[in-house]
């Protein structure tokens, strides 16, 4: 393969669309599971942008950042999901809005 | 070294007092009394080695070698911070007053404190240590450090052993002093930075900074920073509102120290730092300061007249009396300054004694409300007679210390501004009004025969006798005190007049 001949900003457009969709999900969902999923979407879109930029310059750096993001996502999901389990056990609910003990 | 030792004895004594509580609840107070008295004796022995002649020699403000004592070692050389202590006549008087009233304060709280005596006495001693530091430190950084050191134990004394509304009072006290202290810190740092900019030398030393060249506009704002810090402590109108609360809520020893010593640090600061460091700016500012002083005198007296709480009344009388100090400082001539120094000493004794009486009354009656008192002379004639003595002292009876002070201040002020002197003299009348009202409401009037009250005992009488003697001596033979402070005052005046090229 010798590369893809489409403008860079198209793929960045995809990445930003994915990002804002994830962010919208973050803002509107109350279920913790969905919040975590939205985070995944956002991380993934960021990774897409990195990889695209790396490909644009023909450098491997973008892919390396992707791998960093991947490990962050893995760690985050592992901790996040175990927190979900704890939350479900204690409060019998996954409603983020009901968890407002930090209210000032 | 001597001066460091004076402070260290008190600091270590405080630690000892904490641990001595394990030996018994009444041990800490004995330890504290012993520590203060040892410190006092140590100081007196050291002072006795200074020849008479030297105390009368005028110290040059910017040359530490002409002072009675001087001690200086490097502390943080990178910023030119030194542990620099010095003693001249003025500081000497203040240090003596501090230690004497310190002993009085320990005695005042002999039976008053019921919980955690060790920690209480420790706080008391640490406050004294901080005050001594303030009176002797001549490195501005060190000065600021001690300024804070004396604040925090005092906060604890009010917050832990105070009366019903102690939390509020302690916080108010803390915020007022702390906030104003920060203004002073800003001024100190700016002063040092400006001096560094001019000379390339980092120094916090008072002796070096006296000669700092500062633009007039900047000097004014820096002076204001110092002024606010000291006037809050003094307390001068309109920064006085922490005082009635703090005094009312503090335990007896706290009130004694607060009124007797802590307020004087403000006055001392004005004389030592605010004016000499910024003579030109102070000269421009003097009319405002004088009006604030007059306002304090009159306003304090009127509010004292309106109070029903014994301690609050005495607290407002302090505001009024310290107004005279402010007047004395900013009139800045020898009469007024000597009067201000006298007022610092005399007010220390008279008000401390009144607070002790208030404390004794509260201990016996469990109230400070004068509406529930009356005719106490019948129950406690000794206390009544002593209260009468200090009340006439506080209203400025000639023959007692306060009169000499107020007279000199007014006489000095009269040479500067006649109108202000006339208004300030009204303070003599209003002073009589509230003082006598205090006497009337508490000790005179219809006695309650059913009250069973214990009159002053030997310990209290002895403490009171010390202060009464002091006031009488100050009143009829004040010359020794005036002689000690005269060289300092004269040299300060001549120093500032050289800088400003005229009198302040």
């Amino acid at each position, binding site marked *: 393969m010798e590369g893809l001949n489409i403008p860079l900003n198209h793929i960045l457009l995809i990445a930003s669309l994915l990002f804002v969709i994830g962010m919208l999900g973050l803002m509107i969902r109350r279920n913790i599971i969905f919040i975590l999923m939205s985070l995944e979407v956002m991380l993934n879109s960021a990774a897409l942008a990195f990889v695209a930029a790396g490909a644009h310059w023909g450098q491997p750096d973008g892919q390396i950042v992707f791998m960093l993001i991947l490990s962050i996502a893995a760690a985050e999901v592992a901790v996040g999901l175990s927190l979900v389990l704890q939350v479900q056990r204690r409060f019998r609910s996954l409603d983020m809005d009901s968890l407002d003990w930090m209210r000032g | 070294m001597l001066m460091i030792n004076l402070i260290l004895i008190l600091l270590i004594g405080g630690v000892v007092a904490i641990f001595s509580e394990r030996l018994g609840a009444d041990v800490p107070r004995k330890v504290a009394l012993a520590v203060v008295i040892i410190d006092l004796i140590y100081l007196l022995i050291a002072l006795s080695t200074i020849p008479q002649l030297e105390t009368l020699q005028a110290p040059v403000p910017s040359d530490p070698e002409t002072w009675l004592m001087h001690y200086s070692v490097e502390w943080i050389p990178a910023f030119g911070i030194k542990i620099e202590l010095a003693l001249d006549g003025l500081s000497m008087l203040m240090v003596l007053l501090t230690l004497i009233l310190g002993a009085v304060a320990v005695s005042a709280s002999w039976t008053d404190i019921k919980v955690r005596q060790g920690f209480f006495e420790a706080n008391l001693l640490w406050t004294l240590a901080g005050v001594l530091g303030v009176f002797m430190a001549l490195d501005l950084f060190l000065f600021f450090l001690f300024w804070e050191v004396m604040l925090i134990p005092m906060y604890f004394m009010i917050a832990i052993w105070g009366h019903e509304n102690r939390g509020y009072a302690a916080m108010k006290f803390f915020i007022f002093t702390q906030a104003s202290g920060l203004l002073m810190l800003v001024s100190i740092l700016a002063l040092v930075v400006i001096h560094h900019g001019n000379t390339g030398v980092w120094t916090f030393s008072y002796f070096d900074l006296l000669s700092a060249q500062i633009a007039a506009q900047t000097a004014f704002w820096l002076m204001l920073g110092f002024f606010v810090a000291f006037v809050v402590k003094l307390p001068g109108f309109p920064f006085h509102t922490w005082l009635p609360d703090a005094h009312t809520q503090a335990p007896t020893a706290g009130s004694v120290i607060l009124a007797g010593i802590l307020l004087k640090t403000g006055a001392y600061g004005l004389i030592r730092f605010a004016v000499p460091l910024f003579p030109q700016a102070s000269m421009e500012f003097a009319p405002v300061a004088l009006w604030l002083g007059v306002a304090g005198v009159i306003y304090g007296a009127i509010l004292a007249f309106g109070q029903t709480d014994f301690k609050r009344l005495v607290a407002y009388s302090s505001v009024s009396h310290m107004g005279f100090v402010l007047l004395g400082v900013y009139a800045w001539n020898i009469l007024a300054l000597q009067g201000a120094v006298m007022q610092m000493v005399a007010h220390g004794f008279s008000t401390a004694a009144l607070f002790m009486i208030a404390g004794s009354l509260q201990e016996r009656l469990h109230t400070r409300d004068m509406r529930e008192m009356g005719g106490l002379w019948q129950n406690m004639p000794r206390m009544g007679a002593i209260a009468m003595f200090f009340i006439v002292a506080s209203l400025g009876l*000639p023959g007692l210390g306060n009169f000499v002070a107020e007279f000199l201040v007014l*006489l000095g002020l009269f040479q500067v501004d006649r109108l202000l002197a006339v208004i300030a003299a009204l303070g*003599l009348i209003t002073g009589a009004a509230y003082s006598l009202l205090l006497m009337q409401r508490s000790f005179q009037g219809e006695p309650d025969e059913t009250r069973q009250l214990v009159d002053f005992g030997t310990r209290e009488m002895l403490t009171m006798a010390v202060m009464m003697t002091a006031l009488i001596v100050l009143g009829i033979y004040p*010359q020794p005190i005036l002689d000690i402070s005269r060289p300092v005052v004269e040299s300060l005046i001549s120093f500032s007049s050289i800088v400003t090229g005229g009198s302040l």
Partner: protein
Amino acid sequence: MRELIGLIPLIPLLSSATLMLFAGHLSRFAIGLLGVGSVGIAAILTAKMGIDFLGNPEVFKVTLWTWMQVGTFSSDVAFYFDGLTLVMMSVITGVGFLIHLFSTEFMEEDVSYARYFAYLNMFVAAMLILVMADNLLLLYLGWEGVGVCSYLLVGFWYQNSANGYAARKAFIVTRIGDTLMALGLFLLFTELGTLDIQALGDAAKDKWQVGDSMPLIACLLILGGAVGKSAQLPLHTWLPDAMAGPTPVSALIHAATMVTAGVYLIARTHELYLFAPIAMIAVALVGLATSLMAAFTALTQHDIKRILAYSTISQIGYMFLALGVGAWTAGIFHLMTHAFFKALLFLGSGAIIHCLHHEHNIFKMGGLRTRMPVTFWSFMIGSAALAALPMTSGFFSKDQILLQAYQVDGIGPWLWFGGLVGALLTAVYSFRLVFVVFFGQVNTEPDKDTGWRMVIPLSLLCILAMMGGWIIIPVTQVFPLAVFEHPAHWVEYVSIAVPIVGVIIAYLIFLGGQLKVDVFTNSFVMQKLQQFWFSGWRIDWLYDQLLVRPYYGLARALKLEPVDNFYRLVVTISQTFNQWLSAGQSGQMRRYITSMVFGLIVLLAILVRAS
């Protein structure tokens, strides 16, 4: 001997200190001995000094120590002794001794016997310092000292709040005058550079011209002090209330010595007054107005002590009149004779009160002539002297004042006429007192008669009140010689006759009953006028409305510390911010995210703009 002059105030002072410190350990006899004895010794020493002085009239000054020396200001604890000092010291220690003696009987049942003598001795000491002081500052010490002693003694029976009020009023009203005087001292020092009384006179000669404004202001300020202490208009209101104290106190402090301190002060500083003729006229007018006002008031009072109090105010008014017209010698002379006869009258009234269960109202007395003969004769002599009947001591002094007042250019005859009216009224009210109390029917039976400790002072004072007029006071060196032309004879005759007329009027109204004045006095206008006089010309009421109430109101309004409102506002503002910000801390994750997004938008917008 001269060096021992310091002992004269010191002995009573030490006695006072002893009485205060060891009150519980002394027997009543010892207390009395100490109290009376110390003043007695002071009196003997004074007498010795007086005899020396009369033999060798040399003025001297004894400096004990430097009180304060600051810059150019210097004040010594130093005593100055001249004829004027001698007169004042003699009155203080002599009359003081008699009153102390009298007190031992008057106060014998009081529980606070020691406290009483401690205060009284302290008063004598302070008063002696006042008159002996070499400089005005030391004089001011004595001045305030007697004020405090007066306060303590007026409020001696502190259990009654009314006494406490009277005491405070006395102190504060005089303090107003004292403050004026203090300002006068400041002005004098600033202008003349010293407070030494003799040096002041010399400095004034160098620096001042007659009629300058500075001496006028200074003299008026000093007059303010004198007016306060001597209970002259407009600061006289404290004296009638001060009668709340024990009667011997009224005799000593509020008749014989302290209240005349103002007269002494003006006489002492007469060299300054010579530079301020307007101030002199002011002194004379204040004196005359006061004497008339007080005389009218005395006419309507019921309380025996209040009558005497107003009479004192009135008599001191005469002294001021004398000072104002330059008749210093006459003023001081009247001060002395007044001390004799007024002390006598007060002690007499004290004896009556003592024997009549503390009755003060003269209309509940009556017919005491036979019951208490010694007191009756004391009162007769005292009243005669007060009314200035010929050959009594009061006659000599008052006559001199009136005649010298007549001499003043311009307003002299008016002053003289005013003085005559006052003299007439004085005679009427003093004999009204005598006739009502000692004649007529007995309303209250005395339960005891006076003992020897009362009789001796009364008798001695009777002699002094009668014969005091023959004493020649040795003040010729002190005051400039008055150019005294004898006025027309008719002036003298009228002056002599007026008091006699007054006595006759009093007799006709109050004893004989020939003069029916009921119709007159019951008329509406006279009723109102009487009420007006009775209330002391409503001056108390006026001050109450103008000063006391507003001050109380101000204190009450400010009690809650208005300045604190500012700080409370700061607190409220920061609390409001706190509430706002902590409301943002909702604990709702989605809101946090939303606000983060918002922040992101803003940041990005800034970035975009910047690039």
